[in-house]
């Protein structure tokens, strides 16, 4: 189905159009949200909210961008809002990393050669990713989790192609620096 057909269908409240839209986009939006929140259950809830918002506000969709671009934008915003709310609820991200590092430094002192299990390694990598500057993180996740091209990312983030290149390059450099610190502490 084309964007126009989806939009017309949704405006009429056609269930088949809505079902097709969900089936076509659910997995890539799920990967995206999971890249931000690192939890299947939370990612599923977020993607459902994305589709609900799109369904309810289809009348105000002006069509300046493609439907897919709009879906991605809503998903990114919902994910970032979710993270902000979570941050308010729990302790800060920097404390999280520090605590993890302290915890593992204690392990290191007890048994220097012990490497973290993959689950713990995942946790540190996710936290390193979460601590990237917001725009770098968005560009990196869109590129790595959804395999989107720089052009597609520039459309979603509404920035130039060169800005996307720069954001992704800086994201990789900063991520490497953070991971190198963990490596030096024998954490990854």
């Amino acid at each position, binding site marked *: 189905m084309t964007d126009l057909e989806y939009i017309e269908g949704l405006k009429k409240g056609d269930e088949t159009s809505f*079902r097709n839209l*969900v089936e076509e986009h659910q997995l890539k939006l799920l990967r995206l949200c999971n890249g931000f929140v690192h939890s299947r259950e939370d990612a599923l809830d977020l993607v459902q909210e994305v589709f609900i918002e799109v*369904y309810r506000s289809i009348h105000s969709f002006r069509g300046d961008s493609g439907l897919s671009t709009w879906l991605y934008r809503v998903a990114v915003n919902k994910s970032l809002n979710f993270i902000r709310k979570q941050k308010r609820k729990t302790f800060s991200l920097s404390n999280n990393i520090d605590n993890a590092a302290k915890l593992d430094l204690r392990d290191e002192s007890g048994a220097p050669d012990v490497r973290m299990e993959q689950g713990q390694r995942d946790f540190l990598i*996710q936290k390193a990713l979460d601590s990237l500057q917001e725009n770098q993180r968005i560009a990196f996740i869109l590129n790595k989790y959804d395999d989107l091209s720089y052009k597609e990312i520039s459309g979603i983030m509404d920035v130039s192609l060169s800005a996307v290149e720069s954001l992704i*390059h800086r994201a990789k450099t900063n991520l*490497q620096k953070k*991971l*190198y610190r963990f*490596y030096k502490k024998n954490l990854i």
Partner: protein
Amino acid sequence: MQCKEIHNDYIGYLDGTLDAETNSMIEEHLLSCNHCRDFVERLKSLQVTIEREKNIQTSETFFENIQDKLEHLPKSPDVKTYSLAFRIAASVALIMFGTWMGLWIGKGFHMNSSLSNDYKDEIYYLYDIQQGIVENNMLSDLTE
């Protein structure tokens, strides 16, 4: 021994997005540097983590859950209602503004009576001229 010249692009090297020149420069360095080689090996866990997170599946009842949530959500005021309410408010505001402007201008005329009289004189003067022209035309028609 730790390396003093750690390249910034090891993640790019691993995901294959570097240009050929940078790529071969890194490969050359890795051949002679145990520290960086080991770090690059460890960096591969980044890709493993991302691949694991990407490998996520939706639930079988995903669409039904959305429908269920939609049914239980409080109905949002629709766009048409907003639009009508906005139009009514804008009309009332416009009428009030127009009334206020009218009163303000009228007040200005009353306060400046000389301007008001001049204005009246001007009207009579124009009226006289027009009347004169019309009378002259009528007289000329009769005499012809």
